């Protein structure tokens, strides 16, 4: 049984899917609500252990949502085993939060969406806001009884784009590059803090527009209000209703953040995350690449 939406925020009410976000205040009041599970997903695998929202379980994108050998996500059986072990049921409302402006929380939410877990929401402002507000953090271990999450086949066709999809897509719709301008221009093959996630070539996919992910974030760390987001993505990037949109970054975590904005906050209906992103495209043989500050063409 899904938990009621957070209807307290005028900002949320303006979004296409207001129920996809919760406020810290709402979450604090609902920690013990049956049918709600809180999940923490961070960039640092030990951050949860230093303190987490009471009752939250950790789901680490790198080590728990990914196949350890092949560059892909866990399959239906793997996801069912993971969520059963974490004590999450198919009809639970899952609220995900994390560090780094919810990058990895958004990525985890996107993976949950591939498996069709219906009610997944983000905590606006993430871990940093919860802590900044002085809310309760605990190191007490969370014990949730195991559940029997069903084996669901992953749907890779709706929200996910592969390299070949992108190759065929160039020129047919908006491609959004959410990386830093230096990565987009081709000045760097890596982001300054992430040299491990490099590639052999620098630049961007032809026709892609540069809309760095951080443009969607307000000064207070939450998402910007709808009107401001519309100005950035609709007026600025020219995305129109009915467009197919594909977003990418380096390994897909920041483009998941933008995917969340486009899909759930602005209501564009056909938004896909190209999770291979630049670590794949920038090292792939013979794919088209453009450098410089213009989107370019094929």
């Amino acid at each position, binding site marked *: 049984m899904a938990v009621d939406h957070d209807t307290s925020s005028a900002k949320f009410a303006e979004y296409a899917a207001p129920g996809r976000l919760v406020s810290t205040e709402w979450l604090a009041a609902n920690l013990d609500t049956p049918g709600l599970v809180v999940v923490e997903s961070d960039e*640092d695998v*030990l951050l949860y252990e*230093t303190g987490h929202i009471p009752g939250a379980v950790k789901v680490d994108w*790198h080590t728990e949502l990914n196949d*350890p050998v092949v560059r892909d996500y866990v399959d239906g059986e793997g996801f069912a085993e993971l969520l059963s072990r974490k004590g999450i049921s198919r009809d639970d409302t899952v609220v995900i939060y994390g560090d780094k402006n919810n990058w990895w929380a958004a990525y985890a939410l996107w993976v949950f969406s591939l498996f069709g877990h219906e009610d997944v929401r983000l905590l606006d402002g993430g871990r940093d806001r919860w802590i900044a507000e002085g809310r309760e953090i605990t190191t007490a271990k969370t014990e949730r009884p195991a559940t029997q999450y069903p084996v669901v086949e992953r749907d890779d066709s709706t929200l996910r784009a592969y390299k070949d999809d992108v190759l065929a897509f160039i020129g047919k719709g908006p491609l959004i590059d959410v990386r830093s301008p230096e990565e987009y221009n081709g000045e760097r093959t890596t982001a300054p*803090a*992430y040299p491990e996630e490099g590639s052999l070539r620098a630049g961007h996919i032809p026709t892609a527009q540069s809309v760095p992910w951080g443009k969607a974030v307000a000064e207070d760390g939450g998402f910007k209000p709808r009107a401001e987001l519309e100005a950035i993505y609709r007026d600025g990037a020219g995305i129109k209703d009915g467009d197919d949109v594909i977003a990418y970054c380096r390994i897909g975590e920041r483009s998941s953040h933008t995917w969340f904005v486009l899909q759930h906050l602005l209501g564009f209906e056909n938004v896909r995350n190209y999770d291979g992103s630049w670590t794949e495209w920038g090292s792939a043989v013979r794919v088209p690449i453009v450098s410089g500050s213009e989107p370019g063409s094929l």
Partner: protein
Amino acid sequence: MAGMTDTHVPATLAEFRDEFLELPAADRLELLLEFANELPPVSDEIASHPEMCERVAECQSPVYIYIEVTDGVVTMHATAPPEAPTTRGFASILVQGLTGLTADEVLAIPNDYPQSIGLTRLVSPLRIGGMTGMLMRAKRQVEAKR
């Protein structure tokens, strides 16, 4: 310059490695967190002169290291932010493991030491690369300052 050099894991680093490997995988992250909590604060001099330190670009978080070599003996200093406990753990292992060694002993540490301590699967290969970056930069500073 010598050709092939033998590598050797010094006693403290060997002890740390064995501590990790002796634990069941499920408990190793907890040990890494203990290391993180042991990372000593840097001296006032270093804290007030960040320009003395080298940024470890391989780490996702801002991590800085500084190596001193005095009378042939190495002291390693490192800072890493509290919101990066994994990185603090890596730094702590190296700070404790390298400090007190001779320059030669540091240079003989195998570069794949981070991959030998049973953490790669637990933190992911991407993240363990940060520790390798730290070790290699430390060795470079030792070479330059010996």
